[in-house]
């Protein structure tokens, strides 16, 4: 086989309708950003799944390390006072 390299990999984010966030849907290869958007249109929005597309070259994404997940996310576990149900109110107060 030839020595040809793959086109860069792009991560695709789609806004499904106005008012919602762009959400990661998958990835694809494309030579440049314009082609990535065109390919994303064909691959990820064949059935009206989106009204807006973001593409980011995968190499630009920095991710947290799964092995650090305890030190990163556990501190939030024991802070129940950050949730409304932690506070006792008299029954007469119906909505707060």
């Amino acid at each position, binding site marked *: *086989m*030839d020595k*040809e*390299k*793959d*086109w860069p*990999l792009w991560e695709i984010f789609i806004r499904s309708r106005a008012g919602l966030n762009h959400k990661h849907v*998958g*990835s*694809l*290869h494309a*030579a*440049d950003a314009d*082609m990535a958007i065109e390919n994303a249109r*064909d*691959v990820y929005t*064949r*059935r009206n799944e989106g009204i807006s597309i973001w593409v980011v070259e995968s190499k630009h994404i920095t*991710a947290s*390390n*799964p*092995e650090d997940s305890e030190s990163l996310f556990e501190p939030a576990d024991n802070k129940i006072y950050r949730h409304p149900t932690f506070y006792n109110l008299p029954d007469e107060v119906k909505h707060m």
Partner: protein
Amino acid sequence: MTTETSMLDKFEEKIRKEIKIEPRDWMPEKYRKTLVRQISQHAHSEIVGMLPEGNWITRAPSMRRKVALLAKVQDEAGHGLYLYSAAETLGTTRKEMTDDLHTGKAKYSSIFNYPSLTWADIGAIGWLVDGAAIMNQVMLCRTSYGPYARAMVRICKEESFHQRQGYEIMLTLARGSEEQKAMAQDALNRWWWPSLMMFGPPDHESKHTAQSMAWKIKRKTNDELRQQFVDATVPQAKLIGLKIPDSDLKWNEEKGSYDFGEIDWDEFWNVVKGNGPCNKERLNARVKASEKGQWVREAAAAFAEKQNQRKAKKEQVA
């Protein structure tokens, strides 16, 4: 310090608790390898699967049939891409996978090594081949590897129209002239057994099943899925007045499902080994497509490079 054993314990606990494994999580090497093999072969099947159907796009009997078939074949291309991306999250590259397909190292579903001889075959493929694929894919929506499961959810959502369009073709032919009905029956006769083989060798001979079940890559065995397919499909054939080509097929009241005849596993292995009616033709078509597209890929890469340089220059001036 985390040792290999404690990593493995953690991994297995996640599997037990139905917590999905994600790309950067630690996983046993064999789990990774099994997934790369399975997902890439699944992707190749979607891509090679476009060939028998593409054969009929220009000869579809009406505009309605033509747009449906075009959309279906385009979906298969998309499904191949979702799956290649899922496999790439495991550290393989697109190029490695396509090279493995083109050199014959990687397999794809053997069903696509059978020819699509008449228009009725397009009906039979949608109804039976997509029907069997969907049964497998619905099960894989719950597979333990996150990116694979997510690709499967997308694919299943899109694929339900494939089976319906196939069954509608069969229904129309079965209600047509004597010749049309015979054509539908002939297609069913030829595609029935290869469709049952799609689920793979029987459980007691399947070398991957036990481990894949333990890791929850697969959630049902080959034989379970095959039985499920037979039970779902037999009444559909009856409904449109076609006969399943199996003289041993009969309802088993006690087990609440159909008994069916012996599958010709010699034929299955023969096709897997490359001796099916269309193995060479299919592979040649893929290699040729890749070779003919090479200048396009190179031109696009050169164009992107040039645009980047221009952009960089402009930014410098500004």
